[in-house]
């Protein structure tokens, strides 16, 4: 018990004891596992096209059927998980990382604040899909460009969040106390202010993660997504949409995996919010 309390703060313990959080984590973990183990779970290469076996309904060989190019959908959906989940993660890290740095800077320095926030407003003023389409057009469809395209419009939201936390925390007596001790501003920012952003950022991150997977699908729909030979859930859906009445399995499984993942990540996020927000957590019955 003592060791446990050393390792985990009370908040962490409470958070982990919450059912939605556990449920969300469990499903996400399952998805991640399926994706990581994809090469071992599947017997077909997800990119090998066998046009003569196109649009086969699910059977004992092709568990999820095949797509219009005769690729094994089971393998594609599982491998697609690798890319989609990784993409969500990377987008999350990039957006949260850059957003946090900028948000801290904006919250800490008045001059930078004015400039930075105008730029952020500018980015927010452009519908994110349009921005993403333009970016993928600019850089070509590759992992990097898709990540940038999806992460970029998310950055202002993170910046705003972090900045608002910084603004509210920087007047906190303990921050002033640290400054009063002669601790330099940047160190105070990292040591005393940043940790306050962790809880709201965690929630925001789950949201970004989920929406990144969705946006990737939409980009696929618009024809400017991830390179189509690479299986992603978005690509599978986008490619399958023309067959979905004759061959529903082309989108059913990918859609199902995507929905369940996004769902569980959202449940996780909601759970975290309920737990990390002390006011809501106090109301648990």
């Amino acid at each position, binding site marked *: 018990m003592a060791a446990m309390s050393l390792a985990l703060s009370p908040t962490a313990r409470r958070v982990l004891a919450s059912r939605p959080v556990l449920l969300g984590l469990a499903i996400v973990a399952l998805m991640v596992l399926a994706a990581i183990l994809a090469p071992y779970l599947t017997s077909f290469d997800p990119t090998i096209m066998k046009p003569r076996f196109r649009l086969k309904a699910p059977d004992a060989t092709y568990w999820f059927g095949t797509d219009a190019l005769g690729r094994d959908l089971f393998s594609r959906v599982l491998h697609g998980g690798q890319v989609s989940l990784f993409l969500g993660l990377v987008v999350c890290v990039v957006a949260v990382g850059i957003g946090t740095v900028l948000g801290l800077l904006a919250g800490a320095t008045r001059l930078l604040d004015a400039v930075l926030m105008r730029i952020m407003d500018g980015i927010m003023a452009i519908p994110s899909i349009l921005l993403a389409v333009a970016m993928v057009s600019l850089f070509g469809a590759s992992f990097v460009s898709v990540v940038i395209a999806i992460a970029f419009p998310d950055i202002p939201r993170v910046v705003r969040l972090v900045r608002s936390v910084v603004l509210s925390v920087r007047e*906190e*007596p*303990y921050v*002033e*106390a*640290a*400054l*009063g*001790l*002669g*601790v*330099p501003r940047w160190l105070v920012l990292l*040591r*005393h202010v940043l*940790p306050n952003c962790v809880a709201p950022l965690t929630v925001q991150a789950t949201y970004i993660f989920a929406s990144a997977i969705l946006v990737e699908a939409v980009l696929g729909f618009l024809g400017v997504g991830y390179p189509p030979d690479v299986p992603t859930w978005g690509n599978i859906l986008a490619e399958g949409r023309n067959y979905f009445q004759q061959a529903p399995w082309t989108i059913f499984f990918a859609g199902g995996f995507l929905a369940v993942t996004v769902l569980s990540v959202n449940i996780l996020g909601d759970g975290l919010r309920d737990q990390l927000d002390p006011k809501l957590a106090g109301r648990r*019955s």
Partner: protein
Amino acid sequence: MTTAQAAGTASPVLSIRNLAVALPKGGDRAHAVRGLNLDIGPQEIVCIVGESGSGKSVTASAVMGLLPPGTLRVESGAIELEGEDLIAATPARMRELRGDRMAMIFQEPMTALNPLMTVGAQIGEAIRVHRPGLAASAVRERVLELVRDVRLPDPERMIGAYPHQMSGGQRQRVMIAMALALEPALIIADEPTTALDITTQAQILRLLRELQDRHHSAVLFITHDFGVVHDIADRVLVMRQGEVVEQGAAAEVLAAPQHPYTRMLLDAVPQGEVKAEPLAAAAPLIEIEALELVYGGRSLFGGGRAVRAVDGVSLTLGEGETLGVVGESGSGKSTVGRCLTGFNTPTGGRILYRGRDIAGFRGRELQAYRRGVQMIFQDPYRSLNPRRRIRDTLIEGPLQHGTPRAEALSRAAGLVEMVGLKPDALDRYPHEFSGGQRQRICIARALAMEPEVIVADEAVSALDVSVQAQVLELIDDLQKRLGFAMVFITHDLRIAAAISDRIAVMQRGRLVEYGAVDEVFLRPRGDYTRDLLAAIPGGGFARAEAAAG
């Protein structure tokens, strides 16, 4: 045990028998309240006193039927309002009774009112809810009457105002008007004046007493201030750890407390004695000359909303001396302190440190100055980073100033001991301490810097009396041993008197009186100082004056 019926023959308005409220598992103790018995007759004021967490508010909530659902519940006992069993009452019945037959005034006037509704609407709401048949004009009439009753200025305008447009005292009056709306048999007031400055507090108490006389309500008054008890209570109930340790007529309990706990509480009340040692002529360390600070007004678009928080204040702080700064809320006390510590840059005047203007300090010099002038903040909880262990908090400053880690650590250990905490405190987080302990940690943090000056901003206001006394004693003791000078900001004149060599009285940003402590308090020259002194609950300096005279 039955309670003596102070009001004689009339049947009690409220009668509580053997009340026990269970706490959830993992709480401070098994019961928030246990074995509580209480009767309040018509027109009677009963005070509940006791340290923080002793179960005062829980008792009140239990009566109102407003215990947080799922967390706290009445385990056993009976509560009767005018003979009606409240514990067995349905939620609907409780709703009918609330506001109509019993009403509650809450501690925090700032947050207890809906910020988006006019106060008139909020006062009227209780009437509309319980008297649905009443015409709108009649409701308005009644609201106006109530507003007049609680002496709010310009009632017609007032009922259209929003809470944020009123002062704390005015808001508390609105709360009272709300409680009185339907002339309930019982009014429960849960620390209704703690958040107010003393002049306002005195007015509110007077008003409450007056109204209670007129409306014949029974009042259950919760406080931890014995001055307040002295001023208004008929009877008093002393609680500790969820249990009643003593009750009786107020005068008797105050004059001859039976229980040692009561005695301890009473002893801890600052009596308003002025500091014993005479003021030695010390060399001036810090001189404040015509300090002026205007908030706002500088922003690009925010013209015209400037607040002149400090306006031409000149003070001197000698080495090793304690300067008490008093004055009502918003008078600019904190702002002076913040200018001193360099958190705010004055917009006028200057601050001299050993004869040199601090505005000119840069780099090393500034570092040295900052290190030498430390602040203890008003709110001990919020001035400690909840995510860092006490050790890290204590060594952060010294490390920053180049003290080797080992030395900083040993110094921290010494300080923790010096402020009366156990060494294991270093490994704990702020939330694992009581308020008083946290305040000690803040003091230790300031001391770790070996400062020449400590600015203590309301350093003990958040603590209850017994703890307050301990901390004050500690500060006094440390100052004697370490010899730092101190600016002690407070709105409690009794505390200021006990600790200061000199007193500065502020009002609306200006310095209205400034001098040696005995001069200011015993022979006040200004009207404002006299008002302040008169407003101290419990008779103020009666005893002190007697002692001095």
